[in-house]
């Protein structure tokens, strides 16, 4: 048995190695991002300030702590959380092509935010409405699937219901845009729907962080059981899993964390689809490693994209545009590789 135990180790050692590598990479990305911006900063100035608290320039602490730090933390949370939510949804629906908006959470949040902007709510009001309608869309999808899909394939019914509620909320978003004042409200709605990290503050992060941790923790703890779902509902049941309960827990947690980040960042697509897919490539499909690795990969990706968004041109480029422009071709590259190697 000893020799077989020996074979196992390189595998998990490789995964640990990759996780540590991603950890180092994210530290580098953070330092790099902190230096970047309209007020450029050298790495040595930054490190001197971080380790000694001394800085040549008096405005440095303000720029770092009030402008760049919230944005960096925001990017880490938004990218990482969307990636974990995507991985969870993909595991649950046994499909690597699923993204967190499959049950309509983004469309719901988009509608909530548009409505709040129409009604001239404050920023907090917009965020609350986005959060509320994001979760409502998912629960509506679950509810509808329970009513119409009693004797059908439950997963299929859930996906179809999600598509339907998503379509309804998308139509409502269009309605909001159509009736919005094209000088004041419409630009705000459009801007929100394209996603941005520019307005994230530390106070917002402090509010959503506990909610996000509450949602992520069960996913991490249940990661082995989510693995077992890969063989499908019936086999997972025969292997001893209460699939109905597990499915509800995973959907609630993944939707909760998605709604929490979307309400502070606006709609950000692609990350939840592409990052878990790419990460599965690195560490394999076991969710125990896939969740933490997806978080790190998603954070790094988001940080780099946001750096481009805020410093490539003098005018900030909306994230939604950049992510699709960069994410879509990247996705094709992974796809062409994965057909050779089977994910």
């Amino acid at each position, binding site marked *: *048995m000893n020799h*077989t*135990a020996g*074979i*196992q180790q390189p*595998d998990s050692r490789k995964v640990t190695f990759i996780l540590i590598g991603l950890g180092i990479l994210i530290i580098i990305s953070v330092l790099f991002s902190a230096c970047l911006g309209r007020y450029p900063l050298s790495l040595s100035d930054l490190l001197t300030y971080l380790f000694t608290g001394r800085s040549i320039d008096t405005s440095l602490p303000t720029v770092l702590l009030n402008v760049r730090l919230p944005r960096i933390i925001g990017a880490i949370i938004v990218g990482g959380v969307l990636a974990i939510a995507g991985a969870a949804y993909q*595991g649950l629906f*046994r*499909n*690597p092509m699923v993204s967190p908006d499959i049950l309509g959470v983004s469309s719901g949040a988009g509608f909530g935010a548009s409505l709040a902007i129409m009604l001239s709510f404050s920023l907090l009001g917009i965020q609350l409405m986005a959060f509320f309608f994001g979760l409502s869309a998912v629960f509506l999808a679950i509810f509808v699937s329970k009513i119409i899909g009693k*004797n059908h394939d439950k997963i299929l019914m859930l996906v179809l219901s999600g598509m339907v509620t998503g379509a309804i909320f998308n139509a409502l978003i269009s309605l909001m845009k159509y009736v919005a004042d094209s000088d004041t409200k419409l630009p705000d709605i459009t801007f929100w729907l394209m996603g941005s990290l520019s307005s994230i503050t530390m106070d917002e992060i402090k509010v959503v962080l506990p909610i996000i941790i509450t949602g992520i923790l069960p996913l991490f*703890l*249940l*990661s*082995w*059981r989510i*693995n*077992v779902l*890969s*063989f*499908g509902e*019936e*086999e997972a*049941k*025969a*292997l*001893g*899993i*209460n699939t109905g309960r597990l499915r509800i827990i995973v959907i609630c947690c993944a939707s909760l964390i998605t709604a929490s980040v979307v309400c502070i960042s606006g709609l950000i697509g692609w990350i939840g689809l592409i990052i878990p897919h790419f990460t*599965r490539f690195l560490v*394999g*499909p*076991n969710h*125990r490693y896939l969740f933490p690795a997806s978080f790190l990969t998603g954070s790094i990706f988001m940080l780099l994209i946001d750096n481009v968004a805020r410093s490539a041109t003098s005018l900030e480029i909306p994230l939604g545009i950049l992510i699709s422009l960069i994410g879509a071709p990247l996705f094709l590259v992974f796809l062409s590789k994965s057909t050779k190697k*089977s*994910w």
Partner: protein
Amino acid sequence: MKLEIKNGVFGYPHKPILTGIDFELNTGEIICVLGKNGAGKTTLFKSMLGILKPLSGSILLNGKPIEHWNRSQFARLVGYIPQVRALPFPFTVLEVILFGRTAHMSAFGSPGKKDRMIADECLELLNICHLRNRIFTQLSGGEQQMVIVARALAQQPSFLILDEPTSSLDFGNQIKIIRQVNSLKNNSLGILMATHSPDHAFMCDAKVAVIHDGGIWKSGHSNDVVTESILKEIYGIDIKVQVSDIQSESGRSVCIPIL
């Protein structure tokens, strides 16, 4: 221990497939389920596993209705070997076998050293150690089937329900599975196996239940049930049943289809 069905009606709402099922499986015995395609063998199995709700009647494990067992308690006693189907993610063979240990873990658990040791024993038992670190989705259908058997063994159940376990295997692996089934019986497991080859019933010296026309049509020991007239009724072809004259096989019957 006993897995029994009392007056079961199984199938889908408004569309019962099996009616009036009375059935009993004890540890230490093998029951082969015969029946043509679409007769309802899989429906019977899914109902016994609690995947499909019975339309009426009751299914009892050790005298307690199966809907009163929680999933992991039930899975510690009853294992299932389904017909192989596609896996969406590239798990390794070892991971797939460890899935079989899930019922023995806590809700938030993941496999530990002991689980890994049991998985390795199962690999060794089925002589598939060389597959251990391969990707499950890249194996041949037959290899995948062997891994699924190993997964069920890792579950260490008292009852094993096998849905045509040999259907995608080559001749050698088919016989290996039958040998394995026999040795599991000798280790006092109760085994319920659907098969399309009536010979398997003779090889396992098993009891036989014939599913025909929406119910259990005949049941009893293979020597009494697997007869030429009954086989003709099930499969609609002429089949001779003869006692083999190979000494070491001590009077085992074989089925010879007449072309």
